[in-house]
């Protein structure tokens, strides 16, 4: 005796995929479709608008002959190493400190976090002021009687990039702190007690026991910071506009300016393709290892 076809079971089998499919379709078109479109553009002679005459690799050849692009890449190297490094160190230190049963944690935490809530369109002017030697910190210190205080990095070709790093760290280090804090709170307290009974000092306790266990938080932080570094655009525009000279150009500002202000859309597209490849080179191995691990 075979029961009638159970439509409900069949529906339940298809429903999950049905629910997922709009998202997958949207992402397929709006992310991957557009990436393909960009790759295609990078082989065309597009200038002010997309056009479809193929020109082979010449845009890439031009791109790598531009000293502007070289500077952007070199800047990105310095910027991302410093930005990721400093954010991680500050984030971790603040998280560890905040995890010591600090009075007023509830007040401090939102103070550390709030910069993430603001865009540089909002804080750009304030940052410009702070960094400007004529109005900002330097001037304030002089007013307060510290005449020899000097902070004019933003005006200096060799140091302006560090100002960009400073503002970027200001914006995200609190968020990194939150991730590490979440990781710390997830560690088994009994293990810490055991380590202390074993005679570990606080320093070695953190170095040998705690920090190694924060690996997932480290990975998440690296990925988030890494892609933020590559995408960094608005803070450069807000702080320096790429200057002094071209000292703070980054690939994202390069791409925008070639695509939209210089009417060389095809070269902009080829720089975008290089950026995407860089992001993929960071992300794909990470995603692969993470997802594999979860699957076991």
């Amino acid at each position, binding site marked *: 005796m075979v029961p009638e076809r159970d439509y409900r079971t069949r529906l339940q089998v298809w429903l999950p*995929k049905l629910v*997922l499919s709009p998202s997958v379709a949207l992402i397929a078109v709006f992310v991957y479709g557009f990436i393909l479109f960009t790759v295609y553009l990078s082989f065309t002679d597009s200038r002010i608008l997309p056009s479809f005459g193929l020109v082979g690799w010449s845009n890439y050849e031009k791109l790598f002959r531009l000293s502007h692009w070289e500077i952007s890449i070199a800047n990105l190297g310095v910027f991302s190493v410093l930005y990721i490094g400093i954010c991680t160190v500050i984030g971790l230190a603040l998280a560890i400190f905040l995890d010591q049963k600090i009075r007023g944690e509830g007040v401090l935490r939102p103070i550390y976090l709030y910069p993430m*809530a603001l865009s540089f369109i909002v804080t750009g002017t304030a940052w410009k002021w702070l960094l400007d030697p004529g109005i900002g910190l330097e001037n304030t210190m002089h007013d307060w009687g510290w005449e020899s205080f000097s902070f004019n990095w933003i005006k200096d070709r060799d140091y302006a990039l560090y100002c960009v790093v400073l503002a970027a760290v*200001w914006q995200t280090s609190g968020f990194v702190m*939150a991730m590490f804090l979440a990781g710390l709170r997830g560690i088994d307290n009994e293990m810490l007690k055991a380590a202390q009974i074993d005679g570990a000092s606080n320093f070695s306790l953190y170095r040998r026991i705690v920090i190694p266990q924060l690996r997932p938080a480290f990975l998440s932080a690296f990925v988030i910071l890494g892609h933020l570094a590559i995408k960094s655009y608005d803070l450069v525009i807000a702080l320096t506009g790429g200057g002094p000279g071209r000292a703070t150009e980054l690939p994202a500002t390069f791409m925008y300016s070639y695509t939209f202000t210089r009417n060389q859309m095809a070269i902009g597209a080829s720089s975008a393709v290089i950026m995407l490849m860089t*992001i993929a080179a960071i992300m794909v191995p990470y995603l692969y290892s993470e997802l594999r*691990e979860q699957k076991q």
Partner: protein
Amino acid sequence: MDTAVRTGNVARTFIYLTLLLFALFYMLPLFVMLVNSVKPLSEITGGNMMSFPEVWTLDPWRDAWSKAQVGVQATGLRPYFWNSIKMVVPAVAISTVMGALNGYVLTKWRFRYDTILFGFMLFACFIPFQIVLIPMARVLGLAGIAGTTSGLVLVHVVYGLGFTTLYFRNYYAAFPTELVRAAQIDGAGFFRIFWRILLPSSGPIIVVSVIWQFTNIWNDFLFGASFADFDSQPMTVALNNLVQSSTGVQEYNVHFAGAIYAALPTLLVYVVAGRYFVRGLMAGSVKG
């Protein structure tokens, strides 16, 4: 939660000092904005950036809200504020709901290649927005929603999906699958299980998702400027118009007041929901 680590008095003093120092560092730009938004312009151009006003005034705040010149007419930021709200609320709601459903499917209704599919969706988080501008404009045009709030909502939903799916997937991965099975035996279907069983327990991760999406969408300038019409321009575009005007006297106090207006909703969200944020991160995004 109680920590097993013990620290001495010297160390604690050092810790408190460091924490306070950093709090000052983080507060500095906001302080500059606040203090200068309540000064008359003359005090700003002549005086110290850090000093408190000699004459307190709320005029800049009033001007920024309803009188400042952001276009041909001196409307202030008020109309744009509502444009932003009209865009942000549906975009956050839709992307959160879709992310939640995606996370639910990817963890509780697993199928072949689901992990690969998730990786595929996750990559959406990392695309630089500048490159999608032109093709997106074309698609919006073809769909007939160019220059409308619905178009903006669509754009923000699409590029938020990767993040919301990530958050909910990680959160639901830790949610006991047995509950879903029990509910299945009890006779609840796909949506009923989601609605009655998972959703009521999703508070912390909803907070994370909403905070994340709200701040990102509210703060977006590029999409707002490119895909909005005269009647749907969001707050950030208006603020940019206010601050970036290149000629004439720069009314810095009005600029700062305007900037704080633009920051207020996101600040509010962070301060109100901030303590659930770490909890939500704990539950979701950073577990291995």
